[in-house]
């Protein structure tokens, strides 16, 4: 009996359920698709030692954000359910009047929700399954590989997670619904449709003042955000900006309707035309009562847009330079100063103490890595390595970075000091000999640089210090190194010292060989050695060469116990000859991994927040429309044409959708601008592409909801006449 009633009810109110159903469908599909990612075959195909970390991270990030997404969807379902109940108060009142118990009545509602939910869940899983197959190709594209062996993979884990999550949400929704039906008094249920909605009227002058105040508060929030640069979340500027932005937006929506009404109604020639009085009042009364939800929607939209575009921008920043940052086939790095205790006079004390034999060997070989490796595996070395060059980095004994920064113009010095940590500023300046630099440049096929005896050159390729490097060079700054006064050449030398995820060379000095020699005489030794090499053209893949290189290194030193788990730092316990190995192939794969991670997270969160806001707005707008059906009937009787009523509806839907969007876009523009100044422009990442992508996403999803809402509302008004 209950089932029959519930089924008929669903069929009767298909339109009310449509938006709810579609949104649920999207939610389930996206939830499954993204949660199934870690189980996809392509992941195993691509997954290598170098990307294992990223894949683990992807799994745990997806799990974390799925909780957030589940909360958003739960809110959505509760909200829509509340709306459906409010719409049908009269019907429930009739059930109660006919003698059905409140329990039976809420059971009807429960069964209805369950039927719609189950259908959405099942259909959503099917769509999610198809979507996850499409994501396989996207994943492959992000890694720049093709799929060798395609097959459908169904992830029972993700399916189970989806079902469990939605069962919990429905259970919560059921409890809420039952409570809502039970709590109602019969009289309010029955008179639900006839009771006059109280029209909230606000004093226009108060609104005007509040509106001006809100604009001021938001402007202050923007300036605070600019101050903070969005570098740290705990920055008091950032906290102030966040609070002010939330409060300012809230007051803005609170005051907006009253303020606009005051202005618009004053202009008779604009106001008294066609259905304008009706349309304006209709919008104003909604904004007056629904300003809290408009505010929440605006905040969600802001998050959605900012997360998406900044995530994409960040991805570009992190992976955009992957090619430039990895010019060598592989880099072998020895960190001689590892475990350096700054309080000790001898930076290598830790090394000497822990591994006296290795230290002695290094010193004996003048810290040259290549000959040592070659002597242990001569055949493999010649087969694998075409050429190599080493860079030894020494510390200048008598100049720190703080002193270098002091040579800059005050503005530039301030900029650097505020972004660099104290530890970096107190550290001594890095030095490299010019002959090693030239050997490395030759390895890369670049021209050698020449340096006179009294000269030095600034080496830099990191964006963050590029202005400072240029200033030092162009001003021909005079720098005292090891008791000798050196003048900077006018050019900045751009050289990546080893393969890395980003461009890392920051304000390193290239000095004449004689300076290094005199340091060596004083007993100095390099704090880091970078052996960069190019693989021979031996017909093997990069991965095979990586493996060969690993064997060569292993021949010179035993593998550490951690080598099986941690990549890169395979030889951590051995500081000499090789502490870590970074290969081009590995870094490119890692960049692909990060690209995938951020792309998926940005799309996932951006998409879910967008459909949630779209659905909430649609549900609200449709409920307004159905509450206003008598008004439309009235207008039609008075002789309003269908066209002018449709136009009024469109105006209402548009304002309601576009108002929070406009405010959110303003906020996002500010946040993205600040991030662009402090991060993206320094990293040299163009932010326009991610912004365009975010715009397309909003246009398609949000615009889609707008369109569906309008057509649904229009057909509701038409059929009511």
């Amino acid at each position, binding site marked *: 009996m209950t089932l029959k009633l519930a089924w008929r009810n669903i069929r009767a109110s298909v339109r009310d359920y449509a938006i709810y159903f579609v949104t649920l469908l999207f939610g389930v599909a996206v939830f499954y698709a993204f949660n199934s990612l870690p189980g996809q075959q392509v992941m195993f195909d691509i997954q290598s030692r170098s990307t294992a970390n990223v894949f683990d991270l992807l799994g745990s990030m997806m799990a974390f954000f799925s909780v957030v997404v589940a909360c958003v969807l739960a809110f959505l379902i509760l909200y829509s359910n509340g709306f459906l109940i409010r719409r049908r108060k009269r019907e429930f009142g009739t059930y109660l009047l006919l003698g059905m118990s409140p329990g039976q009545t809420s059971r009807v509602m429960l069964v209805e929700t369950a039927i719609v939910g189950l259908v959405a869940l099942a259909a959503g899983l099917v769509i999610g399954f198809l979507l996850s197959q499409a994501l396989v190709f996207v994943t492959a594209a992000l890694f720049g590989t093709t799929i060798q062996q395609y097959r459908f993979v169904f992830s029972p884990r993700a399916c189970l997670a989806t079902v469990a999550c939605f069962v919990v949400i429905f259970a919560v929704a059921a409890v809420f619904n039952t409570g809502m039906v039970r709590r109602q008094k019969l009289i309010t249920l029955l008179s639900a449709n006839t009771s*006059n909605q109280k029209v909230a009227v606000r004093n226009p002058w108060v609104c005007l003042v509040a509106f001006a105040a809100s604009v001021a508060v938001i402007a202050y929030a923007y300036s605070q955000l600019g101050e903070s640069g969005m570098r740290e979340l705990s920055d008091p500027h950032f906290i102030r900006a966040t609070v002010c932005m939330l409060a300012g937006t809230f007051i803005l929506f609170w005051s907006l309707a009253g303020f606009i009404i005051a202005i618009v109604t004053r202009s*008779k020639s604009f106001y*008294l*035309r066609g259905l304008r009085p009706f349309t304006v009042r209709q919008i104003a009364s909604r904004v007056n009562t629904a300003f809290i939800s408009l505010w929440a929607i605006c905040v969600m939209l802001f998050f959605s847009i900012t997360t998406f575009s900044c995530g994409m921008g960040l991805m570009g920043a992190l992976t955009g330079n992957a090619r430039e940052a990895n010019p060598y086939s592989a880099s072998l790095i020895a960190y001689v100063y590892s475990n350096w205790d700054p309080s000790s006079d001898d930076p290598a004390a830790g090394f000497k103490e822990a591994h006296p034999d290795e230290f002695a060997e290094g010193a004996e070989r003048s810290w040259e890595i290549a000959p040592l490796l070659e002597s242990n595996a001569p055949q493999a070395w010649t087969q694998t390595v075409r050429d190599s060059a080493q860079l030894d980095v020494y510390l200048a004994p008598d100049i720190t970075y703080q002193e270098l920064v002091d040579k800059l113009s005050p503005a530039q010095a301030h900029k650097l000091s505020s972004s660099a940590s104290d530890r970096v500023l107190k550290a001594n300046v890095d030095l490299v000999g010019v002959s090693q630099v030239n050997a490395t440049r030759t390895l890369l096929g670049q021209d050698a640089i020449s340096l006179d005896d009294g000269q030095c050159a600034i080496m830099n390729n990191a964006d963050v210090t590029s202005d400072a490097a240029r200033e030092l060079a162009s001003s021909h700054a005079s720098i005292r190194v090891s008791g000798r006064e050196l003048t900077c050449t006018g050019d900045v030398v751009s050289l990546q010292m080893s393969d890395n995820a980003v461009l890392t060379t920051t304000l390193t000095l290239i000095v004449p060989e004689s300076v290094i020699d005199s340091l060596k005489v004083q007993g100095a030794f390099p704090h880091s050695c970078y052996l960069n090499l190019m693989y021979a053209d031996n017909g093997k893949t990069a991965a095979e060469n990586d493996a060969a290189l690993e064997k060569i290194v292993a021949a010179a030193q035993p593998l550490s116990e951690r080598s099986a788990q941690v990549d890169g730092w395979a030889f951590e316990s051995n500081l000499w000859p090789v502490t870590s190995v970074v290969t081009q192939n590995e870094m490119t794969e890692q960049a692909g991994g990060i690209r995938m991670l951020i792309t998926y997270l940005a799309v996932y969160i951006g998409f879910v927040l967008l459909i949630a806001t779209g659905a909430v707005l649609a549900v609200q707008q449709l409920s307004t429309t159905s509450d206003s059906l*008598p008004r439309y009937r009235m*207008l039609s*009787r*008075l*002789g*309003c044409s269908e066209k002018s009523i449709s136009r009024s509806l469109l105006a209402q839907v548009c304002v309601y959708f576009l108002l929070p969007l406009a405010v959110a876009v303003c906020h996002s523009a500010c946040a993205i601008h600040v991030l662009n100044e402090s991060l993206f422009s320094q990293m040299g990442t163009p932010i326009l592409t991610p912004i365009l992508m975010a715009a397309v996403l909003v246009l398609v999803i949000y615009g889609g909801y707008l369109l569906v809402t309008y057509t649904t509302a229009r057909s509701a008004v038409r059929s009511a006449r």
Partner: protein
Amino acid sequence: MTESIASPTPSSMPGAVMAQSAPAALSVRQVAKTFGARGALTHALNGITLDIDKGEFVAIMGPSGSGKTTLLNCVSTIDRPTSGQILVDGRDITSLPKRALTTFRRDELGFIFQDFNLLNTLTARENIALALTIKHVPPAEVAARTQDIASVLGVAAVLDKYPGQMSGGQKQRVAAARAIVGNPALILADEPTGALDSHSASVLLDTLSMMNRQMRATIMMVTHDSFAASFASRVLFIKDGALFNEVRRGDAGREEFFARIIEVVTFLGGGVGDDA
């Protein structure tokens, strides 16, 4: 009984008489309306014929189920008769296409409903103005005409209030203002006093007859309240979907006219006002 009871339908006057003078504001010719499927037909209107001249204030009375509301719906173009013709200002509205009907209602009809049907999100001023703005009257003229009609009908003081802040009588007079502000050919009032207390009802009815006398408004009022009907210049009685009787006020005072109406109501079996 009065003399007029002997003339069952005014339509016994031939059409030729009509052609000589200006066309009637409303002319209902042999209108029938049936509801339901073939097996179970309900005849709500049974070939009813009546005329309302320009500047007349006509009340239509009848017991429940007599067809009053169906007649009103047909005249107000919300419903279409099954057969017959309805002419407003000499124009047959039963054959108009749907789009033209909307324009027709906008330009030729004014409505007053039992439950006011004011838009509660709009102020009184905007409710009245709406009748003009949807006709695309220039904004300056809209403002002036709204103010004028409100002064005449005594609602100028509440112009900037919302319906929720007004009394029932004020709401109904605002509705009357909205109905007449566009100078319609015919004002249709559907139980306008139904939701009002007796004092407000008297004020409204005075307002309606003032609109009729001073502003030359043609009013067709459906009611089952004999007191309300006594404010009209002529009362038509409907029974079983056809015209049953007609009482003209002539030079009689309102009380005398009221007494004559009561007579007919009693004759009809008291069924006219019993569900008021």
